[in-house]
Every structure is written in C-alpha cells, then in structure tokens.
C-alpha cells in the first residue's frame, strides 16, 4: 500500500510553536536548548517552550518530515557528541515558505481592512 507524500499546503496552518521552531532552524542546525533559546529570543520572551513540550514537538516534526537529525556540529570540539542536533528538511523549508506566504496574505488582508487603525 503506497502512502501519498503530503504537499506543504496539507500541513497548514502550523501551530505557533512549530512555526517558531522551524524559524529557529532556518539559520542552521541547532540542539534542543538552542532551539528553545532561539524561540524565546525571536519572540522577545513571549513564547517559552518547556523541555517536555520541546521534545514532544521535535518528535512530531521528525515524524512529519519537517526536521531531521544531523551529525553536523557547528563547533564540534566544544560539544557533547551524544547531543542530538536538528535541521530543516527540504520539505520543512517548503512548508515554512508556504506558511509564511499564508501569514503574509493574512497580514495584507488585515492591512487592507485597516484593522490596526480601527483598533487605535
């Protein structure tokens, strides 16, 4: 029984946590703590992922082929070799692009409707 490869559109919309984790990996491979810190910094502390949730998300993202483990180490001599590093897959990158396009459209729509002006 063959399984159909999902298209990036099938994965949308992404949850905020997955979106920010993918964004954190755009700059290159990172370990769990690196992803956690990157998300926290990217969101100015508004999103803090805890360890249990982080690895739960990592497992689901690997299963969905959004990210993968990598043997590459940014600074091998300073690192614990047992530590796992993760990077975006090609599919993950395309999903991130699709999500970014979707969000850009949402923001464009909101701007055309002057949502922010109304709020003010």
């Amino acid at each position, binding site marked *: 029984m063959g399984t159909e490869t999902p298209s990036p559109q099938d994965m949308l919309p992404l949850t905020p946590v997955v979106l920010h984790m993918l964004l954190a990996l755009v700059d290159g491979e990172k370990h769990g*703590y690196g992803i956690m810190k990157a998300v926290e910094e990217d969101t100015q502390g508004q999103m803090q992922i805890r*360890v249990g949730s982080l690895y739960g998300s990592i497992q689901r993202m690997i299963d969905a082929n959004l990210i993968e483990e990598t043997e590459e180490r940014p600074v091998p001599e300073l690192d614990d070799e047992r530590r796992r590093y993760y990077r975006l897959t090609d599919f993950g990158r395309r999903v991130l692009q699709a999500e970014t396009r979707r969000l850009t459209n949402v923001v464009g729509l909101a701007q055309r409707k002057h949502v922010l002006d109304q709020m003010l």
Partner: protein
Amino acid sequence: MRPTHLSGFQALSAEVYMQLLRLYPKTYRQKYAVDMQRTFIDCCRAAFQEGGSIGLFKVWLPTLADLGLTVIEKHLDEGLLSSGATMIRAISLVMLGCATLLFAVSWNMGIGFMLLAMVLLIVGALGLFFTSPQGSAIIKRKLSLSDDAVQPLSESQGPQRRQETRGDIIVNKVGRGFWLRWMSASDMGLVVGFALYFQLVVGFASELSFGLQTLISIAGGIFLGASIGLAQWLVLRKQISWPGQWIIASTAGGAVGGTVALIAGEITGEVTDAGFYGALAVGAAVIGISLGIAEWLVLRRYVSQAGWWVLASTVGIVVAIGLSNVLGQALHSVILSIVGDDIARFLAMLIFGGLLLMGYGGITGAVLVWLLRQTVPI
C-alpha cells in the same frame, strides 16, 4: 547521563529531573532522555546565573507542570493507556497521590478534607488491588473463568527478578527502584497515619479527660502504625518472605509510641517553653523510637546490624514530622522578608514537603537497602 561540573542545587535538580524522566514511556525515554536532561541542565544553569536559587525554582515550577502533561500525552501516543487495566492503575495512582496531599493539608483544614481523602485512598487502593495479578485472579474466579486463564502477570509477562535465598527469606536485588518504591509507600503511610492520629489526638480528644485521651491516643497510634506498616508491607512483600510480621510490629510500635508521644508532648509543652512545635518534635521522636524498636524486633532475626534501624526510624520521623514543620515555619518568615508572600509560602511548603518526603521514606529506605545487602546472621 550523570550530571557533571554542577554544584549544589543544580546537581540535585539534574538528578531529580533524570529520575522524573522515568515516567515517560520507555521507547521515548531511550531516544530523548539524555537530550532532555542535557537541555534541562542548560536551563538550570542559565536560570541560576540569572536569579540564583529563586531562578532555579522558577524553572522547576513550569517544568513540572509541562512534564505532567507531556508524560500523559506520550503514554497516550504510545497506546500504553489503551488497556482498561493500565488506565485504571494510572487513575488509582493519581487518586492515591491526591489522597496523600489532602491528608497532608487536612491537619488544619478540617474533617471534610479528611473524609474526601479517605474516599480517594480507599478507591485508589481498590483500583490498584483489582488490577494487580492477585486482584484480577479473584475477579476471574468470581466470574467462574478457568484457572488456566488466571495466570498472574508476574508469571506470564513480568521480567524475571534476580533472587537469592538467605535461610528462610528471599531477597530480591535491591537498589534505587526499591528505595523509590519504599519512599513513596512509607511517606504515604506516614502522612495518612499521622493525619488520622493528629485529628484524633489533637483535634478530637484535646478537651477530654486524660483517661479518654490516653485511650484515643492508643487508637490513633494503632492507625498510625498500621498505616505505615501496611504501606511498607506492599513494598516488602515483593522482597522478603516475612512481611506479615512487619504490619504487626509497626501497629504495636505505633500504639505504644502514639500513647507515650501524647504524654511526652504534653510534658514538653508544660515543663518547657518549647511550644507546639517543640512538643511535636518530641512526640515525633518518641513515635520514631517506638516504631524503630518494634520493627527492629522483626528485622534483627534476618538482617545483621539491624540496630541501625532504630536510629533510622527515629531520625526519619523527627526530620519528617518535627524538623519539617519547625524549619518550614522558621524559614517562611525569613524568606518572607526577602521575597513576596506567595513565593515565601511556596518555598516554605517546598522545604516542608521535601523534608517530609526525604525524611522518613528517604532515610529509612536508604538504611533498609543497606541492611538488606548485608550478610544474614546464623
């Protein structure tokens, strides 16, 4: 992975977190536990650098909540809670945990809390019993299933335990797992038993005549000893072939200790100016000695150097009941002057809870593991 290059609270945090990771399903744990611990250590380091010990606590609180949720999620993902029996067992354990907490706070929350705790305790215990091999065998017999179908889990699926025989006792390999089980059971027994004892002796009997107080303290002591003995029996019965005597010894020790503790506590309160907490510490010491001696009478027949048990029991109960209350109260006002009331209360409760749990179960468990590893006399 054992944490290295960490000090004090950080190393303790890493060790405790490593133990908590055992709650996750095995396959998940095998894959991610090392990374999770590594990441948690990094979080602790950063938090410690930023805010010291308070920073560490700020990491722990959300981590515990997150851990609780993700443990359930992962078990559901792996289908481990799909069988009815496993689900009931998990719910029963949660009920026992809640009952213990309710008993712990029921000392000054009234009889309603205690009744609710009692119901949770009984339902949780029944749930655990009927999902155990023995309990399910009873159910199947009642339902008239054939004996062939009644095969205890431990025989059909459970891992073979490493056993060695020493005279008429069977001693399974004891280690960290035994210590954890012992600590959980002992602390639960102590909290439940002491809450009942406290309600009866201090709450109910304080206005009665001395004779009636003595009678009630004997009853309270029996509850206390039986509760501890029964809970510890649940762990001991898998290790040794003489656990029944343990319940009898603990009950007797509790009855004597509970009665003498009332008198010793009253004398302390009247003769000295030690106040309530002083009387509590003295009472705890008396109960610890009495329980220790009674259980030593059982232990000494099978284990060499069993005398250490009396000391372990005494120190354990004094730390768990006396010191935890005294330190918790004393530190609350100290911490209050440094941080806000909520955090002070939380930290004081943490100190109280930590001493309570590590005190009795932790100390006696460590000594029992050591004793069971010793050679047997005769």
